[in-house]
C-alpha cells in the first residue's frame, strides 16, 4: 500500500487506484508515511521546513470541526426553482378541497321521519281536527289535500 502512496505523492496513480488506496488507508489504523515523503521532498529541494507542530495543531482543530457531508455545492437550478413556486398554491387548493369535502360529509344527513312516526300513532280524526283549526298557510294546503 505504501508503494501506491508513494506513487500518489508523485501524482503517478490512476484515478481508480486513488479511490482504492484512500479506502484502504482509512481502514488502516497505523499512520502512513505521507508526512515523511513531504519532509524528504522539502529537504532535498532545500525548502524551509517550518514547524512539525503546525500540522498536528491544524489537524487537532479540524477534528473539532463538524464533519462536512455536503458534497459538491452546485448552482441552483432556476427552472426547478420557478416550478417549485407553484407548490404553495397547489397545496392551498388541495387543503381547501379537503376542507370542503369534510364539510359536505358532515351536512349530508338522512331525512328524519319522526313526524310521520308521531302522526302514525295519533288517531286520524284528531289530526284532521288539528289541521282544520290551525291558522296557517300549511293548514290550507293540508285541508285541500285532505278534501281530495
Amino acid at each position: 500500500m505504501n508503494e501506491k502512496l508513494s506513487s500518489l505523492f508523485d501524482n503517478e496513480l490512476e484515478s481508480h487506484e486513488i479511490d482504492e488506496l484512500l479506502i484502504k488507508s482509512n481502514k488502516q489504523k497505523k499512520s502512513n508515511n505521507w508526512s515523511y515523503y513531504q519532509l524528504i521532498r522539502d529537504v532535498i529541494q532545500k525548502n524551509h521546513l517550518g514547524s512539525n507542530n503546525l500540522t498536528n495543531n491544524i489537524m487537532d482543530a479540524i477534528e473539532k470541526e463538524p464533519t462536512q457531508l455536503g458534497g459538491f455545492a452546485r448552482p441552483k437550478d432556476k427552472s426547478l426553482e420557478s416550478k417549485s413556486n407553484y407548490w404553495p398554491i397547489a397545496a392551498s387548493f388541495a387543503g381547501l378541497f379537503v376542507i370542503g369535502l369534510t364539510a359536505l360529509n358532515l351536512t349530508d344527513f338522512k331525512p328524519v321521519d319522526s313526524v310521520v312516526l308521531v302522526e302514525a300513532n295519533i288517531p286520524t280524526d284528531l289530526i284532521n281536527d288539528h289541521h282544520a283549526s290551525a291558522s296557517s298557510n300549511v293548514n290550507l294546503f293540508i285541508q285541500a289535500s285532505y278534501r281530495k
Partner: protein
Amino acid sequence: MNTLKVIATSSHVYNVNKNIKVEEKLMESRPVNPERAIDQKLVEKAQRGDKKAFGMLVEKYQRRLNRLLSRMVRDQSEIEDIVQDSFIKAYRAINNFRGDSAFYTWLYRIGINTAKNHLVKLGKRPKAMNEVDIEEIENFEDAPDLRNHETPESTMMSSEIVASVNQTIAALPNELREAISLREMDGLSYEEISDLMNCPIGTVRSRIFRAREVIAEKLKPLIETTNKRW
C-alpha cells in the same frame, strides 16, 4: 454514375467519422494536470466527510502556504496562526470548492485574505497582491527571511533532519539514489526516469518507494522519539 455518387458519399462519411474520432482521441489525450486531478480526488473525499483526506492536503500544502505567507508577515508564530486559520476556513468552506481552479490556488487565496485581515487588525497596511504576485510567490525558490526568525533549537533540529536525509541518500544503492534524485531534484516523471534508467516504469516506482522508505525509517527515531520542535 450512381455507384460513383454512393462511393463519394460513403467516403465523405468515412472522413467525417474519422475526423470526429481523431478529435475524440485528442480530447482524451489532452494533458490534464495530474497534481490537480489528485488534489481534486482528495477534496471530493473531504467533501464526503473524510478528514484523513483533508489531512493529506494539509501535509502537502502547509509548508508551501507558510512560505507564501512569509512574504506578507514577518513573525513566524503569526504566520503559523494564519496558516492554521486558513486551513480551518478552507475546511469549513470545502463544499463550496467546485474545482474551477486548482485546490492550492483556492487555498492560497484564502491564506492571503486571512493574512490581510490579520494585518488590518494589527493596524498594518497589507501589501496588495494580484494574480501575478500569487504566481510569482508560488514559484519562488526559498524564504531566507524565515531563517532569521527561527529559534536556535528549531535551527538545530532542521539541520539534524537535513544531515540525516543527505547522509541516508548518500548511502543508498546507486539505482535507488539515482531514481529518487531524478524524481525529487529534477522533477522527472516515472516515464522519463524509466527511459533514462532503461528500466520498466514499475521498477522506477519501486526504486523511488524503497528509497523513501529507507530515508523515512532513518528520520523516524529523530522525529518521533525526541519531542523536539523545529
